[in-house]
Protein backbone atom coordinates (compact mmCIF):
# COMPACT_ATOMS: atom_id res chain seq x y z
CA UNK A 1 0.00 0.00 0.00
CA UNK A 2 2.88 2.37 0.79
CA UNK A 3 6.27 1.99 -0.82
CA UNK A 4 9.19 4.39 -0.53
CA UNK A 5 12.38 3.74 -2.46
CA UNK A 6 15.49 5.74 -1.71
CA UNK A 7 13.47 8.84 -0.99
CA UNK A 8 15.33 12.06 -0.36
CA UNK A 9 13.94 15.44 0.51
CA UNK A 10 15.94 18.63 0.52
CA UNK A 11 13.99 21.80 1.26
CA UNK A 12 14.59 24.90 -0.86
CA UNK A 13 16.63 26.40 1.98
CA UNK A 14 19.14 23.57 1.65
CA UNK A 15 18.10 21.52 4.71
CA UNK A 16 18.07 17.83 3.91
CA UNK A 17 15.24 16.34 5.99
CA UNK A 18 15.20 12.83 4.48
CA UNK A 19 18.32 11.26 3.09
CA UNK A 20 17.47 7.97 1.40
CA UNK A 21 14.45 6.27 2.96
CA UNK A 22 13.22 2.76 2.07
CA UNK A 23 9.96 1.76 3.68
CA UNK A 24 7.23 -0.70 2.83
CA UNK A 25 3.95 -0.58 4.71
CA UNK A 26 1.17 -3.08 4.08
CA UNK A 27 -2.52 -2.50 4.08
CA UNK A 28 -3.99 -2.65 7.58
CA UNK A 29 -0.75 -2.00 9.48
CA UNK A 30 -0.40 0.32 12.45
CA UNK A 31 2.96 2.09 12.35
CA UNK A 32 4.57 4.42 14.86
CA UNK A 33 7.03 6.91 13.49
CA UNK A 34 9.49 7.93 16.21
CA UNK A 35 12.64 10.00 16.37
CA UNK A 36 13.99 13.15 17.90
CA UNK A 37 12.74 16.58 17.00
CA UNK A 38 13.90 17.50 13.51
CA UNK A 39 14.50 13.89 12.52
CA UNK A 40 12.15 14.17 9.54
CA UNK A 41 8.91 12.57 10.75
CA UNK A 42 6.63 15.37 9.63
CA UNK A 43 8.47 15.61 6.36
CA UNK A 44 7.78 11.93 5.74
CA UNK A 45 4.08 12.49 6.38
CA UNK A 46 3.99 15.52 4.10
CA UNK A 47 5.52 13.49 1.28
CA UNK A 48 2.85 10.80 1.58
CA UNK A 49 0.14 13.43 1.51
CA UNK A 50 1.81 15.22 -1.38
CA UNK A 51 2.03 18.41 0.66
CA UNK A 52 5.68 18.33 -0.32
CA UNK A 53 7.34 16.56 -3.21
CA UNK A 54 10.34 14.27 -2.84
CA UNK A 55 13.59 15.62 -4.29
CA UNK A 56 14.48 12.13 -5.53
CA UNK A 57 13.38 8.53 -5.15
CA UNK A 58 9.97 6.92 -5.68
CA UNK A 59 6.83 6.96 -3.59
CA UNK A 60 3.82 4.75 -4.30
CA UNK A 61 0.57 5.11 -2.39
CA UNK A 62 -2.29 2.74 -3.28
CA UNK A 63 -0.43 2.03 -6.52
CA UNK A 64 -0.25 5.69 -7.40
CA UNK A 65 3.19 6.95 -8.40
CA UNK A 66 3.54 10.27 -6.58
CA UNK A 67 6.58 11.46 -8.49
CA UNK A 68 4.71 11.48 -11.80
CA UNK A 69 1.34 12.47 -10.35
CA UNK A 70 -0.21 15.54 -11.93
CA UNK A 71 -1.32 18.43 -9.74
CA UNK A 72 -4.91 17.91 -10.70
CA UNK A 73 -4.82 14.36 -9.34
CA UNK A 74 -3.51 15.38 -5.94
CA UNK A 75 -7.02 16.03 -4.52
CA UNK A 76 -8.01 12.49 -5.42
CA UNK A 77 -4.99 11.09 -3.63
CA UNK A 78 -5.93 13.13 -0.58
CA UNK A 79 -9.45 11.80 -0.58
CA UNK A 80 -8.01 8.35 0.02
CA UNK A 81 -5.98 9.58 2.98
CA UNK A 82 -7.26 10.99 6.26
CA UNK A 83 -5.00 13.33 8.23
CA UNK A 84 -4.97 14.32 11.87
CA UNK A 85 -2.71 16.99 13.30
CA UNK A 86 -1.48 18.03 16.67
CA UNK A 87 -3.37 21.32 16.42
CA UNK A 88 -6.65 19.72 15.23
CA UNK A 89 -7.17 22.21 12.38
CA UNK A 90 -10.88 22.71 12.97
CA UNK A 91 -12.81 25.69 11.65
CA UNK A 92 -13.66 27.74 14.72
CA UNK A 93 -16.91 29.26 13.48
CA UNK A 94 -18.45 25.99 12.40
CA UNK A 95 -20.17 23.48 14.62
CA UNK A 96 -18.81 20.00 15.16
CA UNK A 97 -21.34 18.71 12.68
CA UNK A 98 -20.40 21.31 10.06
CA UNK A 99 -16.71 20.68 10.51
CA UNK A 100 -17.17 17.04 9.63
CA UNK A 101 -19.78 17.65 6.93
CA UNK A 102 -17.37 20.07 5.29
CA UNK A 103 -15.04 17.22 4.31
CA UNK A 104 -17.91 15.47 2.56
CA UNK A 105 -19.26 18.59 0.85
CA UNK A 106 -15.87 19.10 -0.70
CA UNK A 107 -16.09 15.70 -2.39
CA UNK A 108 -19.66 16.50 -3.48
CA UNK A 109 -21.51 13.88 -1.48
CA UNK A 110 -25.29 14.08 -1.52
CA UNK A 111 -26.86 15.89 1.47
CA UNK A 112 -28.58 12.70 2.57
CA UNK A 113 -25.35 10.76 2.52
CA UNK A 114 -23.62 13.59 4.37
CA UNK A 115 -26.19 13.65 7.19
CA UNK A 116 -26.03 9.91 7.58
CA UNK A 117 -22.26 9.63 7.47
CA UNK A 118 -21.55 12.59 9.76
CA UNK A 119 -23.71 11.15 12.53
CA UNK A 120 -22.11 7.78 11.96
CA UNK A 121 -18.54 8.98 12.45
CA UNK A 122 -19.50 11.28 15.33
CA UNK A 123 -21.00 8.22 16.97
CA UNK A 124 -17.79 6.32 16.30
CA UNK A 125 -15.73 8.93 18.18
CA UNK A 126 -18.38 9.30 20.87
CA UNK A 127 -19.47 12.86 20.13
CA UNK A 128 -22.93 12.34 18.71
CA UNK A 129 -24.42 14.41 21.53
CA UNK A 130 -22.10 17.37 20.87
CA UNK A 131 -22.80 17.80 17.19
CA UNK A 132 -24.09 21.34 17.67
CA UNK A 133 -21.17 22.59 19.73
CA UNK A 134 -18.46 24.79 18.27
CA UNK A 135 -14.80 23.77 18.79
CA UNK A 136 -14.25 26.40 21.52
CA UNK A 137 -16.90 24.71 23.65
CA UNK A 138 -15.01 21.39 23.57
CA UNK A 139 -12.02 20.01 25.46
CA UNK A 140 -8.77 19.34 23.60
CA UNK A 141 -9.47 15.64 23.45
CA UNK A 142 -12.94 16.23 22.12
CA UNK A 143 -11.60 18.56 19.48
CA UNK A 144 -9.12 15.94 18.39
CA UNK A 145 -11.92 13.42 18.16
CA UNK A 146 -13.79 15.76 15.86
CA UNK A 147 -10.66 16.00 13.71
CA UNK A 148 -10.47 12.20 13.60
CA UNK A 149 -14.14 11.96 12.68
CA UNK A 150 -13.49 14.36 9.83
CA UNK A 151 -10.45 12.38 8.73
CA UNK A 152 -12.32 9.09 8.49
CA UNK A 153 -15.59 10.47 7.13
CA UNK A 154 -14.59 9.79 3.56
CA UNK A 155 -13.68 6.11 4.23
CA UNK A 156 -9.92 6.57 3.73
CA UNK A 157 -7.77 3.49 3.34
CA UNK A 158 -4.97 5.28 5.13
CA UNK A 159 -5.01 7.53 8.17
CA UNK A 160 -1.90 9.55 8.97
CA UNK A 161 -1.56 11.36 12.25
CA UNK A 162 1.22 13.78 13.10
CA UNK A 163 1.52 13.80 16.90
CA UNK A 164 -2.22 13.48 17.44
CA UNK A 165 -1.74 13.40 21.20
CA UNK A 166 0.95 16.06 21.28
CA UNK A 167 -1.29 18.66 22.91
CA UNK A 168 -3.26 16.35 25.14
CA UNK A 169 -2.90 15.14 28.72
CA UNK A 170 -2.18 11.42 29.27
CA UNK A 171 -5.77 10.35 30.05
CA UNK A 172 -7.11 12.06 26.99
CA UNK A 173 -4.29 10.62 24.92
CA UNK A 174 -5.41 7.10 25.81
CA UNK A 175 -8.94 7.93 24.70
CA UNK A 176 -7.59 9.03 21.33
CA UNK A 177 -5.44 5.92 21.03
CA UNK A 178 -8.43 3.72 21.73
CA UNK A 179 -10.28 5.35 18.86
CA UNK A 180 -7.32 4.99 16.52
CA UNK A 181 -7.01 1.31 17.42
CA UNK A 182 -10.69 0.80 16.66
CA UNK A 183 -10.26 2.47 13.30
CA UNK A 184 -7.24 0.29 12.59
CA UNK A 185 -9.29 -2.78 13.52
CA UNK A 186 -11.68 -2.01 10.66
CA UNK A 187 -8.77 -2.40 8.23
CA UNK A 188 -7.59 1.19 7.91
CA UNK A 189 -3.82 1.57 7.74
CA UNK A 190 -2.50 4.01 10.31
CA UNK A 191 0.78 5.89 10.41
CA UNK A 192 1.33 7.94 13.51
CA UNK A 193 4.27 10.18 14.34
CA UNK A 194 4.68 10.49 18.08
CA UNK A 195 6.96 11.45 20.94
CA UNK A 196 4.98 9.46 23.50
CA UNK A 197 7.14 6.73 25.02
CA UNK A 198 4.21 5.51 27.12
CA UNK A 199 1.94 4.94 24.19
CA UNK A 200 4.52 3.23 22.00
CA UNK A 201 5.69 0.96 24.78
CA UNK A 202 2.17 0.07 25.93
CA UNK A 203 0.29 -0.42 22.71
CA UNK A 204 2.93 -2.46 20.93
CA UNK A 205 3.00 -2.01 17.17
CA UNK A 206 5.49 -1.65 14.37
CA UNK A 207 8.01 1.09 15.14
CA UNK A 208 9.99 2.95 12.51
CA UNK A 209 12.70 5.16 14.02
CA UNK A 210 14.10 8.02 11.98
CA UNK A 211 17.35 9.82 12.72
CA UNK A 212 19.11 12.39 10.63
CA UNK A 213 16.83 11.65 7.70
CA UNK A 214 17.47 7.89 7.73
CA UNK A 215 15.55 4.87 9.01
CA UNK A 216 17.70 3.57 11.86
CA UNK A 217 15.29 0.93 13.18
CA UNK A 218 12.23 -0.86 11.82
CA UNK A 219 10.82 -3.27 14.35
CA UNK A 220 7.56 -5.16 14.74
CA UNK A 221 6.08 -4.79 18.21
CA UNK A 222 8.98 -2.44 18.91
CA UNK A 223 9.89 -0.11 21.75
CA UNK A 224 10.03 3.67 21.77
CA UNK A 225 13.76 3.39 22.32
CA UNK A 226 14.46 6.98 23.42
CA UNK A 227 14.51 8.61 26.80
CA UNK A 228 11.81 11.27 27.08
Amino acid at each position, binding site marked *: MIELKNVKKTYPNGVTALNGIDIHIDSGEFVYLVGQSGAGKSTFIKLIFREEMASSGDIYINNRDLSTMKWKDVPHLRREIGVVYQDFKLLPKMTVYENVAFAL*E*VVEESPRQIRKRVMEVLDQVGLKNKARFIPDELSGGEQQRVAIARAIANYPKLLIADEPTGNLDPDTSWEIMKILEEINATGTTIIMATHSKDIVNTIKRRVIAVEGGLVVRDQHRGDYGYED
Partner: protein
Amino acid sequence: MDMKIRTFKRHFREGLKNTWRNNWMTLASVAAVTTTLLLVATFLVLMFNLNHVADALEEDVQMKVLVDLTADEDETEALGDELNALNNIESVEFSSRDEELEGLISSMGEQGDSWGLQDEDNPLNDAYVVRANEPQDTIEIAEEIEQMDSVERVNYGQDVVQNLFTFNNYARNIGLVLIVALLFTAIFLISNTIKITIMARRREIEIMKLVGATNWFIRWPFFVEGLLLGVLGSIVPISILTVGYYYLDQNAAAVNQFEFIQILPFYPFIFQLAAIILAIGAGIGIWGSVMSVRKFLKV
Protein backbone atom coordinates in the same frame (compact mmCIF):
# COMPACT_ATOMS: atom_id res chain seq x y z
CA MET B 1 -16.56 20.56 -16.13
CA ASP B 2 -19.55 18.68 -14.87
CA MET B 3 -20.59 20.44 -11.74
CA LYS B 4 -23.58 19.29 -9.82
CA ILE B 5 -26.31 21.89 -9.42
CA ARG B 6 -26.06 21.42 -5.68
CA THR B 7 -22.37 22.27 -5.80
CA PHE B 8 -23.05 25.26 -8.00
CA LYS B 9 -25.59 26.51 -5.49
CA ARG B 10 -23.10 25.99 -2.71
CA HIS B 11 -20.44 28.05 -4.49
CA PHE B 12 -22.94 30.80 -5.11
CA ARG B 13 -24.10 30.79 -1.50
CA GLU B 14 -20.52 30.80 -0.22
CA GLY B 15 -19.59 33.66 -2.55
CA LEU B 16 -22.57 35.71 -1.36
CA LYS B 17 -21.86 34.91 2.25
CA ASN B 18 -18.24 35.95 2.00
CA THR B 19 -19.14 39.16 0.21
CA TRP B 20 -21.57 39.95 2.98
CA ARG B 21 -19.37 38.79 5.84
CA ASN B 22 -16.37 40.87 4.76
CA ASN B 23 -18.55 43.93 4.38
CA TRP B 24 -15.81 46.53 4.85
CA MET B 25 -13.53 44.88 2.38
CA THR B 26 -16.43 44.47 0.01
CA LEU B 27 -17.09 48.18 0.30
CA ALA B 28 -13.43 48.99 -0.35
CA SER B 29 -13.32 46.71 -3.38
CA VAL B 30 -16.56 48.07 -4.77
CA ALA B 31 -15.24 51.59 -4.29
CA ALA B 32 -12.09 50.65 -6.19
CA VAL B 33 -14.13 49.18 -9.04
CA THR B 34 -16.49 52.14 -9.06
CA THR B 35 -13.71 54.71 -9.28
CA THR B 36 -11.90 52.83 -11.98
CA LEU B 37 -14.99 52.19 -14.01
CA LEU B 38 -16.00 55.84 -13.78
CA LEU B 39 -12.65 56.85 -15.23
CA VAL B 40 -12.67 54.09 -17.80
CA ALA B 41 -16.23 54.87 -18.78
CA THR B 42 -15.47 58.56 -19.19
CA PHE B 43 -12.53 57.66 -21.38
CA LEU B 44 -14.66 55.28 -23.37
CA VAL B 45 -17.26 57.96 -24.01
CA LEU B 46 -14.55 60.36 -25.12
CA MET B 47 -12.86 57.77 -27.26
CA PHE B 48 -15.94 56.44 -28.94
CA ASN B 49 -17.09 59.96 -29.75
CA LEU B 50 -13.68 61.06 -30.88
CA ASN B 51 -13.54 58.03 -33.08
CA HIS B 52 -16.98 58.81 -34.39
CA VAL B 53 -16.04 62.38 -35.24
CA ALA B 54 -12.71 61.28 -36.64
CA ASP B 55 -14.41 58.71 -38.82
CA ALA B 56 -16.82 61.32 -40.07
CA LEU B 57 -13.98 63.72 -40.85
CA GLU B 58 -11.98 61.01 -42.50
CA GLU B 59 -14.97 60.00 -44.56
CA ASP B 60 -14.98 63.50 -45.98
CA VAL B 61 -11.45 63.20 -47.19
CA GLN B 62 -11.33 62.98 -50.96
CA MET B 63 -8.74 63.55 -53.63
CA LYS B 64 -9.19 65.88 -56.50
CA VAL B 65 -7.07 64.75 -59.41
CA LEU B 66 -6.48 67.72 -61.72
CA VAL B 67 -6.10 66.67 -65.35
CA ASP B 68 -3.35 68.38 -67.37
CA LEU B 69 -4.72 71.33 -69.31
CA THR B 70 -2.96 69.96 -72.37
CA ALA B 71 -4.60 66.54 -72.19
CA ASP B 72 -7.10 65.73 -74.91
CA GLU B 73 -10.33 63.82 -74.46
CA ASP B 74 -8.77 60.41 -75.08
CA GLU B 75 -5.98 61.00 -72.62
CA THR B 76 -8.48 62.20 -70.01
CA GLU B 77 -10.55 59.09 -70.50
CA ALA B 78 -7.45 56.89 -70.33
CA LEU B 79 -6.61 58.49 -66.98
CA GLY B 80 -10.15 57.79 -65.79
CA ASP B 81 -9.74 54.12 -66.69
CA GLU B 82 -6.40 53.98 -64.94
CA LEU B 83 -7.91 55.52 -61.79
CA ASN B 84 -10.79 53.08 -61.87
CA ALA B 85 -8.31 50.23 -62.10
CA LEU B 86 -6.67 51.21 -58.80
CA ASN B 87 -7.13 48.95 -55.81
CA ASN B 88 -8.41 50.39 -52.54
CA ILE B 89 -10.63 52.83 -54.36
CA GLU B 90 -14.19 53.43 -53.36
CA SER B 91 -15.27 55.73 -56.17
CA VAL B 92 -14.03 57.80 -59.07
CA GLU B 93 -16.15 60.59 -60.40
CA PHE B 94 -15.44 62.83 -63.32
CA SER B 95 -16.04 66.51 -62.91
CA SER B 96 -15.60 68.64 -66.02
CA ARG B 97 -14.00 72.07 -65.87
CA ASP B 98 -17.42 73.67 -66.29
CA GLU B 99 -18.79 71.74 -63.35
CA GLU B 100 -15.70 72.68 -61.40
CA LEU B 101 -16.33 76.31 -62.13
CA GLU B 102 -19.94 76.10 -61.10
CA GLY B 103 -18.92 74.47 -57.90
CA LEU B 104 -16.39 77.18 -57.24
CA ILE B 105 -18.85 79.95 -57.92
CA SER B 106 -21.57 78.47 -55.76
CA SER B 107 -19.10 77.93 -52.93
CA MET B 108 -18.26 81.64 -53.03
CA GLY B 109 -21.91 82.64 -52.86
CA GLU B 110 -22.79 86.17 -53.84
CA GLN B 111 -19.22 87.17 -54.16
CA GLY B 112 -18.76 84.68 -56.99
CA ASP B 113 -21.67 86.11 -58.87
CA SER B 114 -20.45 89.65 -58.51
CA TRP B 115 -17.05 88.79 -59.83
CA GLY B 116 -18.70 87.64 -62.98
CA LEU B 117 -16.37 84.74 -63.26
CA GLN B 118 -18.60 82.86 -65.61
CA ASP B 119 -18.10 85.50 -68.26
CA GLU B 120 -14.42 85.02 -68.51
CA ASP B 121 -12.50 82.17 -69.99
CA ASN B 122 -12.68 79.19 -67.59
CA PRO B 123 -9.16 78.78 -66.11
CA LEU B 124 -9.92 75.51 -64.30
CA ASN B 125 -8.89 71.92 -65.08
CA ASP B 126 -11.03 68.90 -65.68
CA ALA B 127 -10.87 66.78 -62.56
CA TYR B 128 -11.53 63.35 -61.12
CA VAL B 129 -12.80 63.09 -57.59
CA VAL B 130 -11.38 59.95 -56.01
CA ARG B 131 -12.29 58.41 -52.68
CA ALA B 132 -10.18 55.79 -51.01
CA ASN B 133 -11.75 52.71 -49.47
CA GLU B 134 -9.81 53.39 -46.31
CA PRO B 135 -9.44 57.13 -45.80
CA GLN B 136 -6.12 56.43 -44.11
CA ASP B 137 -4.72 55.24 -47.44
CA THR B 138 -5.41 58.59 -49.07
CA ILE B 139 -1.88 59.92 -48.86
CA GLU B 140 -0.35 56.81 -50.36
CA ILE B 141 -2.87 56.62 -53.17
CA ALA B 142 -2.44 60.28 -53.95
CA GLU B 143 1.27 59.71 -54.42
CA GLU B 144 0.58 56.85 -56.76
CA ILE B 145 -1.84 58.93 -58.82
CA GLU B 146 0.64 61.74 -59.14
CA GLN B 147 2.90 59.38 -61.07
CA MET B 148 0.25 58.81 -63.73
CA ASP B 149 0.28 60.49 -67.15
CA SER B 150 -1.88 63.56 -67.73
CA VAL B 151 -2.03 64.37 -64.04
CA GLU B 152 -1.17 67.90 -63.13
CA ARG B 153 -1.67 67.69 -59.41
CA VAL B 154 -3.62 65.85 -56.73
CA ASN B 155 -5.32 67.93 -54.06
CA TYR B 156 -6.67 66.51 -50.86
CA GLY B 157 -5.95 69.23 -48.34
CA GLN B 158 -2.52 67.72 -47.75
CA ASP B 159 -1.59 69.43 -44.48
CA VAL B 160 -4.96 69.14 -42.82
CA VAL B 161 -5.38 65.49 -43.70
CA GLN B 162 -1.92 64.53 -42.55
CA ASN B 163 -2.50 66.24 -39.22
CA LEU B 164 -5.93 64.78 -38.85
CA PHE B 165 -4.68 61.25 -39.31
CA THR B 166 -1.75 61.75 -36.98
CA PHE B 167 -3.97 63.26 -34.32
CA ASN B 168 -6.56 60.52 -34.59
CA ASN B 169 -3.98 57.80 -34.30
CA TYR B 170 -2.38 59.39 -31.27
CA ALA B 171 -5.72 59.93 -29.61
CA ARG B 172 -6.76 56.34 -30.17
CA ASN B 173 -3.52 54.86 -28.92
CA ILE B 174 -3.22 57.08 -25.89
CA GLY B 175 -6.81 56.35 -24.94
CA LEU B 176 -6.21 52.65 -25.26
CA VAL B 177 -3.05 52.73 -23.18
CA LEU B 178 -4.78 54.76 -20.47
CA ILE B 179 -7.71 52.39 -20.32
CA VAL B 180 -5.49 49.34 -20.08
CA ALA B 181 -3.42 51.00 -17.36
CA LEU B 182 -6.56 51.85 -15.41
CA LEU B 183 -7.85 48.31 -15.71
CA PHE B 184 -4.65 46.85 -14.36
CA THR B 185 -4.68 49.28 -11.47
CA ALA B 186 -8.19 48.18 -10.61
CA ILE B 187 -7.35 44.50 -10.81
CA PHE B 188 -4.38 45.11 -8.56
CA LEU B 189 -6.50 47.04 -6.04
CA ILE B 190 -9.23 44.43 -5.95
CA SER B 191 -6.86 41.54 -5.68
CA ASN B 192 -5.10 43.26 -2.79
CA THR B 193 -8.30 44.06 -0.94
CA ILE B 194 -9.53 40.52 -1.31
CA LYS B 195 -6.15 39.18 -0.30
CA ILE B 196 -6.61 40.83 3.07
CA THR B 197 -9.91 39.05 3.58
CA ILE B 198 -8.38 35.80 2.44
CA MET B 199 -5.92 35.84 5.29
CA ALA B 200 -8.89 35.16 7.53
CA ARG B 201 -10.05 32.41 5.20
CA ARG B 202 -6.63 30.92 4.86
CA ARG B 203 -7.30 28.21 7.37
CA GLU B 204 -10.50 27.27 5.64
CA ILE B 205 -8.68 26.92 2.34
CA GLU B 206 -5.92 24.92 3.97
CA ILE B 207 -8.43 22.49 5.43
CA MET B 208 -10.29 22.24 2.15
CA LYS B 209 -7.06 21.19 0.52
CA LEU B 210 -6.46 18.74 3.34
CA VAL B 211 -9.69 16.91 2.75
CA GLY B 212 -9.12 16.77 -0.99
CA ALA B 213 -10.95 19.75 -2.49
CA THR B 214 -10.00 20.51 -6.07
CA ASN B 215 -8.61 23.93 -6.82
CA TRP B 216 -11.71 24.88 -8.73
CA PHE B 217 -13.93 23.88 -5.86
CA ILE B 218 -12.04 26.43 -3.76
CA ARG B 219 -11.89 29.01 -6.52
CA TRP B 220 -15.57 29.11 -7.48
CA PRO B 221 -16.84 31.04 -4.44
CA PHE B 222 -14.12 33.60 -5.09
CA PHE B 223 -15.19 33.73 -8.70
CA VAL B 224 -18.74 34.47 -7.57
CA GLU B 225 -17.50 37.05 -5.10
CA GLY B 226 -15.42 38.80 -7.74
CA LEU B 227 -18.31 38.81 -10.15
CA LEU B 228 -20.52 40.33 -7.48
CA LEU B 229 -17.96 43.02 -6.62
CA GLY B 230 -17.62 43.88 -10.30
CA VAL B 231 -21.35 44.11 -10.88
CA LEU B 232 -21.91 46.16 -7.71
CA GLY B 233 -19.05 48.40 -8.76
CA SER B 234 -20.57 49.11 -12.16
CA ILE B 235 -23.92 50.32 -10.86
CA VAL B 236 -22.85 53.85 -9.96
CA PRO B 237 -20.72 54.47 -13.06
CA ILE B 238 -23.47 53.24 -15.36
CA SER B 239 -26.07 55.42 -13.63
CA ILE B 240 -23.90 58.53 -13.70
CA LEU B 241 -22.99 57.99 -17.32
CA THR B 242 -26.53 57.36 -18.42
CA VAL B 243 -27.79 60.55 -16.80
CA GLY B 244 -24.76 62.56 -17.90
CA TYR B 245 -24.86 61.39 -21.46
CA TYR B 246 -28.57 61.97 -21.66
CA TYR B 247 -28.10 65.63 -20.77
CA LEU B 248 -25.16 65.94 -23.11
CA ASP B 249 -27.18 64.42 -25.92
CA GLN B 250 -30.14 66.71 -25.21
CA ASN B 251 -28.05 69.86 -25.14
CA ALA B 252 -25.44 69.00 -27.72
CA ALA B 253 -27.61 70.01 -30.66
CA ALA B 254 -28.26 73.42 -29.15
CA VAL B 255 -24.65 74.15 -28.33
CA ASN B 256 -23.15 72.58 -31.40
CA GLN B 257 -22.47 75.06 -34.16
CA PHE B 258 -20.37 72.80 -36.30
CA GLU B 259 -22.62 70.35 -37.97
CA PHE B 260 -19.85 67.94 -38.69
CA ILE B 261 -19.18 67.32 -35.01
CA GLN B 262 -21.96 65.05 -33.85
CA ILE B 263 -21.87 62.91 -30.74
CA LEU B 264 -23.12 59.36 -30.90
CA PRO B 265 -26.88 59.23 -30.34
CA PHE B 266 -27.96 58.35 -26.79
CA TYR B 267 -29.70 55.23 -28.01
CA PRO B 268 -28.21 52.67 -28.65
CA PHE B 269 -24.82 53.99 -27.56
CA ILE B 270 -25.66 54.06 -23.86
CA PHE B 271 -26.76 50.43 -23.89
CA GLN B 272 -23.57 49.37 -25.58
CA LEU B 273 -21.59 51.41 -23.11
CA ALA B 274 -23.45 49.94 -20.13
CA ALA B 275 -22.81 46.43 -21.44
CA ILE B 276 -19.13 47.17 -21.89
CA ILE B 277 -18.79 48.66 -18.40
CA LEU B 278 -20.64 45.76 -16.83
CA ALA B 279 -18.42 43.30 -18.68
CA ILE B 280 -15.26 45.15 -17.67
CA GLY B 281 -16.45 45.39 -14.06
CA ALA B 282 -17.24 41.68 -13.91
CA GLY B 283 -13.98 40.90 -15.65
CA ILE B 284 -11.73 42.84 -13.30
CA GLY B 285 -13.69 41.66 -10.27
CA ILE B 286 -13.33 38.02 -11.23
CA TRP B 287 -9.74 38.37 -12.27
CA GLY B 288 -8.72 40.24 -9.13
CA SER B 289 -10.54 37.82 -6.90
CA VAL B 290 -9.38 34.60 -8.52
CA MET B 291 -5.83 35.95 -8.70
CA SER B 292 -5.77 36.59 -4.99
CA VAL B 293 -6.45 32.94 -4.09
CA ARG B 294 -3.76 31.69 -6.43
CA LYS B 295 -1.01 31.77 -3.84
CA PHE B 296 -3.01 29.77 -1.32
CA LEU B 297 -3.79 26.98 -3.73
CA LYS B 298 -0.20 25.95 -4.17
CA VAL B 299 -0.15 23.38 -1.40
